[in-house]
């Protein structure tokens, strides 16, 4: 599962390129493009989280904070100070990375449930700051009037353009991560996941790698936040609360923790579930969401990404039965 072939990368890129046109051509589902943009924004966070949690084995219940920091820095600096959005994305990325470093050094020394609580506390504190610093963030009412992105003088003003901006970034992040997993660093991360003692005895700087990957995932979340801000053009704190952190966790687990594809499948499926399909249940929506989540945890503990394997296993069993 760790080996991601060249072929599958090409197929993925092809799907990313073609997908919007399918939806574009069918009017009944043309709004799926909008959902896919948000799904892509989530993918950027979950790819980083997948490296952190699935590969390095460090739980984080606070990544909504980095998403929020990216979004608010982009939002505030462009609207209140009129800076170039791309410069703001860079600033946001550095600030998020720096905060992740400062928080990560002490927090990543914690283990298990203590680490979960540490990151959770960081997430909630950040949320409270977004909520309280009304002069900058607009408080619970939020801030609007965020301008759209421009690339080389061309405004990114349609869904289609934004889709390609977001998803091509996802592709880059994915390729980067895939390379990473199959390298010295990736092996070190997975080694840390199984045994920190053994990894450090093999010369792996355990604390150093934990921080590095934490910072990297925070940077991805920050970029994602900036994209979110410029797409939705409005920010309020509830988009970055504890429940969003949990939603990210759900995406990772539902998609499949031990594979980077799982992060992408999880983000896309959860986006479609919560923005589109579950709406059909009306007041049963919360119930249905809980039920689906529970069923996946029980029957697909390795996430949706393990489904094709199980599927083909069953078919093979069936086929061999017929032959016999």
């Amino acid at each position, binding site marked *: 599962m760790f080996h991601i072939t060249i072929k599958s990368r090409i197929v993925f890129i092809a799907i990313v390129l073609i997908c919007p046109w399918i939806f574009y051509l069918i009017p009944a589902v043309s709004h799926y493009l909008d959902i896919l943009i948000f799904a892509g924004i989530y993918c950027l966070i979950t790819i980083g989280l997948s490296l952190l949690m699935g590969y390095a084995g460090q739980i984080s219940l606070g990544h909504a904070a980095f998403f929020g920091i990216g979004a608010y820095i982009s939002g505030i600096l462009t609207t209140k100070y009129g800076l170039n959005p791309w410069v703001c994305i860079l600033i946001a990325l550095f600030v998020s990375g720096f905060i992740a470093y400062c928080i990560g050094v002490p927090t990543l020394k914690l283990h298990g449930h203590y680490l979960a609580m540490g990151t959770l506390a960081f997430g909630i504190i950040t949320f409270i700051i977004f909520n309280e610093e009304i002069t900058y963030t607009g408080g619970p009412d939020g801030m609007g009037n965020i301008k759209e992105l421009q690339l080389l003088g061309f405004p990114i003003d349609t869904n289609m353009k934004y889709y390609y901006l977001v998803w091509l970034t996802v592709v880059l992040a994915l390729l*980067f991560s895939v390379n990473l997993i199959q390298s010295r660093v990736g*092996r*070190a991360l997975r080694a840390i996941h199984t045994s920190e003692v053994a990894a450090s005895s093999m010369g792996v700087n355990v604390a150093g790698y934990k921080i590095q990957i934490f910072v990297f995932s925070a940077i991805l979340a920050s970029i994602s936040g900036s994209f979110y801000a410029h797409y939705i053009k409005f920010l309020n704190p509830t988009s970055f609360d504890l429940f969003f952190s949990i939603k990210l966790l759900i995406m990772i687990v539902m998609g499949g923790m031990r594979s980077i594809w799982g992060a992408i499948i999880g983000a896309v499926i959860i986006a479609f579930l919560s923005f589109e399909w579950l709406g059909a249940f009306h007041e049963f929506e919360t119930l249905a969401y809980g039920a689906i989540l529970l069923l996946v945890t029980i029957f697909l503990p390795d996430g949706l990404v393990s489904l094709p394997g199980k599927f083909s296993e069953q078919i093979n069993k069936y086929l061999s039965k017929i032959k016999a």
Partner: protein
Amino acid sequence: MELILSVDSLDVIFGGLAALKDVGFTIQKGVIKSLIGPNGAGKSTMLNVITGVIQSTKGDIHFYGKRINGLAAHKISRLGISRTFQHVETFAKMSVLENVMVGCHSHMSANLLTSGLSLFNVRREEDRVKNEALALLDFVGLLDKKYQEASSLPIGEQRILEIARALATRPKLLCLDEPAAGLNESDTNQFSILVREIKKKGISILLIEHDMKLVMKISDELTVLNYGQKIAEGTPIEIQNDPVVHEAYLGG
């Protein structure tokens, strides 16, 4: 003979209890040194202190003249001390090959950025390390299982894999923590051949083992611990004839 490791009057205290008390010994280059003693004598603690997993309370450990007390485990590993574990700690969900490649970590240079971008020299380095790991797997006899998940190997082979992984760090001193536990007789024989092969490469070995037959067969020197203290030191024959050692093992 060149002195590579010296332990001087080392104390390790856990919550008021002394696990090691005033222990000292040395290891020369190219020597197989065994650390023996009854259960709870402090052998594993000794090994954990040398490899940086546990911190000592007092005393010195010098490796090639450099004091290594208090250094982080990964730094000690980079200085050239590598180890295996009493309870196997292979990286369960990684392939046998990848396990050994983790061992090569210290003599690689790719970092998060260059790895992610998969630069040319990263890929070249990756190829080099892969060949090195394959050679090591060939050396220990696990080459045909290179793509299996480590956890799928029987325990004996996992112990061998740990040795290969430790060798991949290019150690000057290899610490083996009960490497023959759970091996049958023919495995044990193969293991002793392997240890001699490693010795031939000029790597010193610090061995903790309960199988006395094996210890006496392959060791050059022995140090005996009891209740955290050194009670005897010498060649296998000297130790076998030492009344104090007999007392410790039999007299309780």
